[in-house]
């Protein structure tokens, strides 16, 4: 009996040494990276930038020592992970990738191909797959990660939050998480990624990466999402402008809320808020030719009227405005489709997938030549905006003002 207890005790103790603590890491031994940037470097190497949180500067109630809330490490190495491990040469703590919010890819690298760097991060087991991917438009990722930001002390969080908010409340950006990106690439689609730029507001740009930067109301440098990068397979080939990006988001059913405006022929400009927008895209093959039908249903609210002559008191006038708004939204989508079909010849909308779903047999024939066929695809638009709200006033009081 005694020996049995003894043996059990010994085996339990041995168990602790076997499984014990090999991946145990205390929080204060970790440098929590919130953003990772990758750029090309000479000799076929990568320049990896890691934005690491300085916890004592961020948390509430802790006495700040007046430093920046993040610190940035940069290393050049033949592989990404090598570079990250190499950062321990500078950093007192191991860079921990579990909490990345943003992954920024330099434009130069994006033009060479992003598949392998995306895979590296997806392969890493501690990384959550819900961070956003963006391309440093006309610049390097390392420059983006160095910019400090007001309001959100952690720049990566700022990027994450403003991408979330702007894609929901202002349509031309779109948030792409790494798993979505990987899915698109695997399905041999053409992804789009939001572009991010460090915008200089004042001339003394050398202050852009210091704390002085946020000492004024207008920071020396701002991070701004601008346009959508169009990829052919995994290579960046160009950018969509604001209107095209908006059109792209309408087609992708990614609009939650946006602002449009309609210029009437009488010189009146009317601002309409779009909400509850829903897009239905269907693909089909008609006599061997692929056809796409896009049906947008949304609701609108009149928010602004600049001019006197627009009446809102009759259903006709509202119908007329709806027509104008329909036309406007359709135009946005047409611009996006035109750009994709003719400028870039990249199926960023996933039309191929839709045709595949609706008519797999025809898709087999179309697939080999899809790059050639895609620009010829006929796209039909149907936009139905319903004006639901006119705000707190009916007719504009500008009419009643005495001249």
């Amino acid at each position: 009996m005694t020996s049995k207890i003894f043996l059990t005790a010994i085996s339990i103790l041995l168990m602790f040494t076997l499984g014990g603590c090999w991946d145990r890491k205390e929080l204060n031994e970790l440098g929590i990276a919130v953003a990772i940037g990758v750029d090309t470097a000479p000799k076929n190497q990568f320049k990896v930038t890691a934005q690491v949180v300085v916890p004592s500067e961020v948390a509430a109630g802790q006495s700040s020592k007046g430093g920046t809330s993040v610190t940035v490490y940069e290393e050049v190495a033949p592989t990404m992970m090598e570079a990250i491990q190499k950062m321990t040469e500078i950093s007192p703590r191991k860079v921990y990738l579990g909490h990345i919010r943003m992954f920024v890819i330099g434009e130069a690298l994006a033009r060479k191909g992003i598949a392998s760097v995306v895979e590296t991060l997806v392969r890493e087991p501690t990384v959550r797959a819900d961070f956003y991917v963006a391309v440093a438009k006309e610049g390097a990722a390392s420059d983006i990660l160095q910019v400090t930001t007001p309001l959100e002390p952690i720049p990566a969080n700022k990027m994450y939050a403003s991408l979330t908010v702007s894609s929901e409340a202002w349509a031309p950006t779109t948030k792409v998480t790494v798993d979505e990106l990987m899915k698109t690439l695997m399905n041999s689609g053409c992804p789009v990624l939001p572009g991010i730029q460090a915008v200089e507001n004042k001339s003394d740009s050398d202050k852009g990466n210091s704390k002085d930067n946020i000492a004024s109301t207008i920071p020396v440098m701002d991070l701004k999402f601008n346009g959508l990068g169009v990829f052919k397979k995994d290579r960046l080939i160009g950018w969509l402008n604001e209107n095209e990006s908006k059109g792209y988001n309408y087609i992708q059913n990614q609009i939650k809320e946006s602002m449009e405006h309609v210029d009437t022929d009488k010189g009146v400009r009317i601002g309409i808020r779009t909400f509850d927008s829903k897009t239905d895209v269907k693909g089909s093959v008609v006599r061997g030719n692929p056809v796409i039908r896009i049906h947008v249903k949304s609701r609108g609210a009149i928010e602004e009227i600049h001019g006197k002559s627009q009446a809102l008191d009759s259903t006709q006038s509202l119908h007329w405005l709806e027509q104008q708004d329909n036309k406007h939204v359709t135009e946005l989508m047409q611009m996006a489709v035109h750009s994709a079909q003719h400028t870039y010849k990249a199926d960023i909308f996933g039309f191929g997938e839709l045709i595949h779903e609706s008519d797999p047999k025809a898709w087999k024939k179309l697939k080999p030549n899809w790059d050639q066929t895609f620009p010829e695809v006929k796209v039909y638009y149907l936009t139905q905006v319903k004006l639901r709200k006119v705000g707190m006033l009916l007719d504009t009081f500008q009419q009643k003002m005495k001249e």
Partner: protein
Amino acid sequence: MPIKGEDERMKQSNDNLTGSIIDNIAKIVQELGNSDDLIIKKFRCLQTCSAALIFIDGLVDSQLLHNSILESLLVKEPADSSPHQDLTEYLQQNILVAAHTGTFTTIKDLFSRLFAGNAILLIENESKGLWIDAAGWEQRSVTEPQSHSVVRGPMEGFTENIRTNTAMIRRRIRDPRLWIESKEIGTVTHTTVSFMYIKGLADEGVVEELRTRLDRINMDSVLEGGYIEEEIQDAIKTPFPTVYNSERPDTIAAGLLEGRIAIIVNGTPFVLLIPALFVQFFQSPDDYFERSLIGTLVRLLRYMAFFLALLAPSLYIAFTTFHQELLPTSLIISIAAQREAVPFPAFIEALLMELTYEILREASIRIPKTIGQAVSIVGTLVIGQAAVQAGAVSAAMVIVVSITAISSYVIPENGMSIAVRILRFLLMFLAASFGLLGIWLGLMAILIHLTTLKSFGVPYMSPFGPYIAPDIKDSIFRFPWTKMTTRPAYHATEEQLEHRNARRQRRS
């Protein structure tokens, strides 16, 4: 364990009384070793024969003894002095009519009567002694129970007196089927242990099993119900209590009505209840006194608190040392900031704080009430702001310890929260070595252990494992009384009494 030489002495006291008062008294005094609380009053009984009244000072009501018993024995003259009638018989029937009396013949009986608070009357030339019930001593009156307090419901609790306690139960269940059986346990203390059950509701098998288990007890003392509990419980190697106890007569009465058996031990206000199930330890009398909806919700809250009290520190350890990626980014940064200055690993930090809390808890129970205030002030400083500011622990850890401590008091039964306290440390070790995997393994082990437990043959985890559908009504849920129409099904009884309320409703 019997005391050495005790058997020998016991044998002596088995001797019969002799006819001589002098001899008997000498023997009693010798046995008691001249203890000065033994009072011997010699007098002439009914003014005819010499007699002695013997009692223990403090165990008898001296007022009663002097005013009625002694007086009537002294003053009254025999109505007819016919010698053929037995004098003790005559005294019992004609003189001591008010008091409860009886006779005995051995010294052993004499002592057991003497220590029960009876006065002993020895008469010259009589081989029988007479005991007169004049028990009366200082005792605590019925007060509000210290544990198991409720917002709404009866406010009286059991006392140390077994008679008061059985009476309190009988007052609630006025039915001849409420049976009571008593026996003396403890070779030195001779403690009265009674068990009560409702004939026809309680499982006969369990009653029989209890009888044999009580008979098996060989102890020299029973000073609290806990002695009995440990002797009769099914499993010893478990942190979980398999015998329920309560200070509340209403809880015990409810248990009896469910077919359970109450064990009342003289000298303690805590009455035991068997068989006890896991779910019972999460039930509070309030659940039944308040409306059923809040009863159910509060029970859910208690189960949540059970898991919090069990797991909060170990989850903290697992998350901060193994699975940082599982916490939201802003939370992990905030915890990281707090841990910046902390010199210990999370496990040591948690262990320190939990131990500090356990020490404080233990101290606050033992400490004299007059200086209790000081301890609580110092204590809050130790596990509060000061510890954080000193950089010894992180603020998050203080939150974890606090929520653990508070949660453990939500469990209504102290026995269950003791089990949680023990297992919490085990799980902390597992979390520190294996992370969430360790916690999961620990929980599985606890679950397996729980399902193997039995309380007097009833599976501890019923009605969940085994699943007994009708009993779910009073487990995590508390169904309205109208839906509680059957007795708990875990024991087989002939009588399936419908609930009183349900019957009343059907009639109207």
